[in-house]
């Protein structure tokens, strides 16, 4: 019974964002990576499952996905250049060839310049995103939680006074 109670509390925290700054940062980092990668690849879904199974906060993950998904197409030129460079980088050619032989890996479309570029860019952005989110949640987390948990009665009582 305790386990169920704790799970319910965790679930509410997961959804409402009452987790720790680490979990919020992790969620945002995963969200940015998943959001950047084009969705016709298997990669965002695999990373998404990993994010769900991790301690990452799902709300910040969702916010990260939406934000990154919106800005991702604008970064296509940059991600294409990054991906193309990596995919045609001679020392890595044998790695790509080996990967391409692995069944199911083709669905990741890792040989697509934008997919590879967004994966690399996402991976690069993940650490600063995590750090920044953690810092922000530490400094402003209390106020955000207070604002989030503000009683709905305040507004009605004000109205009554007026």
């Amino acid at each position, binding site marked *: 019974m305790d*386990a169920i109670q*704790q*799970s*319910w*509390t*965790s*679930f509410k925290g*997961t959804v409402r964002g009452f987790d720790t700054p680490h979990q919020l940062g992790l969620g945002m980092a995963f969200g940015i990576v998943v959001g950047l990668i*084009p969705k*016709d690849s298997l990669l965002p879904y695999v990373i998404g*499952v990993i994010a*769900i*199974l991790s*301690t990452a906060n*799902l709300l910040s993950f969702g916010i990260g996905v939406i934000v990154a998904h919106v800005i991702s*197409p604008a970064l*296509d030129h940059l*991600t*294409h250049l990054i*991906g*193309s460079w990596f*995919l*045609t980088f001679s020392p890595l*050619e*044998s790695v*790509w*060839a080996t990967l*391409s*032989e692995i*069944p*199911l890996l*083709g*669905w990741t*479309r890792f*040989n*697509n*310049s*934008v*997919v590879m*570029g967004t994966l690399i860019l996402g991976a690069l952005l993940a650490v600063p995103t995590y750090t920044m989110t953690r810092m922000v949640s530490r400094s402003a987390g209390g106020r955000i939680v207070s604002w989030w948990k503000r009683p709905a009665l305040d507004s009605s009582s004000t109205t009554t006074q007026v």
Partner: protein
Amino acid sequence: MSRWTYLPPRLVILGLISLALWASADQISQMIVVRSIENRTGGKVDVAQLRCSIGNQKLYLKELVLSDPKDANRNLLQADMAYLDFDASALWRRQLVITDGQTSRLMFGTPRSSAQLTQPFENKDEDSTGNWVASATEKHGQEWLDSLVLPNNQPNEIAELQTAQANQRIVAFWDQQLQQMAKNVVDIKKLAAELNQLAAKDQSADNPLRRRWQGASNSRLQQMQTKNKNVAGQVESLRKQLRNDVIAIEQAHDADAKKISGSMTALELDGEQLSDLLLEDLHADFVNQSVEMFQWFRNVRPEISDDFAPKSKRGVDIQIKGRFAEPTCWVKKIEINGEGRLLGQHFDFSGNAYNLSTEPELLDEPATFELHAQGKQHAAIVCKLDRTQADPIDSVKITFPELNLGERTLGHKNSMQLTLGDSNKVFAVVDLKSVGEQISGTIKLRYSDIALHVDSLNDFAGGRVAALQMNAGVTAIDSFDSLITISGDQNKIVFESQSDLGQRFATAINHSLKRRTGNAVQQQLDELQTLKKQVVGQLQSQVEIQLERLQQAISSNQTRIANLEAVTQTNTDQELRKLRRFE
């Protein structure tokens, strides 16, 4: 709170997501398939139902419609149903390989229904065929007229011929001669009478005057003999003249016969030009429709670079070095059963298609269609679309075992126009090939059960009368062959045609016309012969008889003169002997 307490609710979330995905697998598959095709083609895809069984490796699509990305009013293809067997192992490599499949009521290029339409429908003429080549029948007709060797059908007036003129001259001459001869006969008869008198005097013996008349008679006899010989000479001369005149008439007759034969000639038709004139329209139609069919087949498998308008694709798929490139989608074999339009006619077709792919350049074999079309007409079709080379190579071979053209008009009303009866049958083999933009090929046509009728013929070539004469000849033509050679590119198609129709037509018509002209010539020659025989017969009957009579009279007189000379000589000898006795 333990370390893993966060996990159960998340597993529940994942479980719920998985359950939702499993429950809506068909809808998700449908969405993935639809989105994939739409992204790749740029056209709108409608699928009423999609069922996918990865375990059984089967895919079922119902009422599949793919709109033409470049024509919102038209569907690129639509099929009532499609049962597809796919290779599940290929899915691991992100490949869709259809190993076998069936489609029913597959149709290409159909107009979109009002429910499918995103824009108001613009009605386009479905039957219209591309005008790849223009007909030049009128031009060929004028060329034919210009090159015609015109017939000379002006009959000769017998009175103006040499024979008649010679006859006139000779008859006039002999009329005169006959009068002269009659006079000579009278003179000769008078001479004969005078000789008879002399002979009578000679019979009266002891005539004391004998010596006196003998002296006078000798000189008279000399005169008579001279005259007789003169007339005999004239007779001989006239005989020679008669022979010369007969020869002159014969020569005039021969010259006239030659003139008559040359002056009445039949219309000479050139086979090659006739073929061009009569079949230009028909062959242009065949070329237009064949090229149209060829283009239709080329468009059946859409050219990805030209016909599709893929939605903006993110990034570039980079070919990994050392890895063999494989097509994303490959239909190895699919049974096609559907409808289409060929030569402006509706066809139900069935058959197989092989090696259809979204990346045909990665395959070793060309996309191939082997179809049997059945409708009002039958056709066997083999079409190959080869994208394995640098230049696209397409070929189509269509065999129509018994094509019926219906009633057709051949030629042009300004020159010569024929009607081809509707009972015709044509065995046609269309064999076209394109390499890049260049199109080449042949169309072989074998026409049988042909019934031709000459409707109109330019007055310059003989008009209605000649047309009637021709109709007697064209019935002999019941079949002919044609070979059309096509070359050119997408912008300009040219064709050359060869056919034995023109030659057969010319042979039949020339034979008929010559026979008729020959009859007219023979009639004139017969008239001429009759005239000649009449004149020669007249000469021979009248002049010869007269000359013979004259000759007989001359001979008789000659005998009389000889007898009298003999008597005179005897009397002179007796007188000489008497004188010698007295001495």
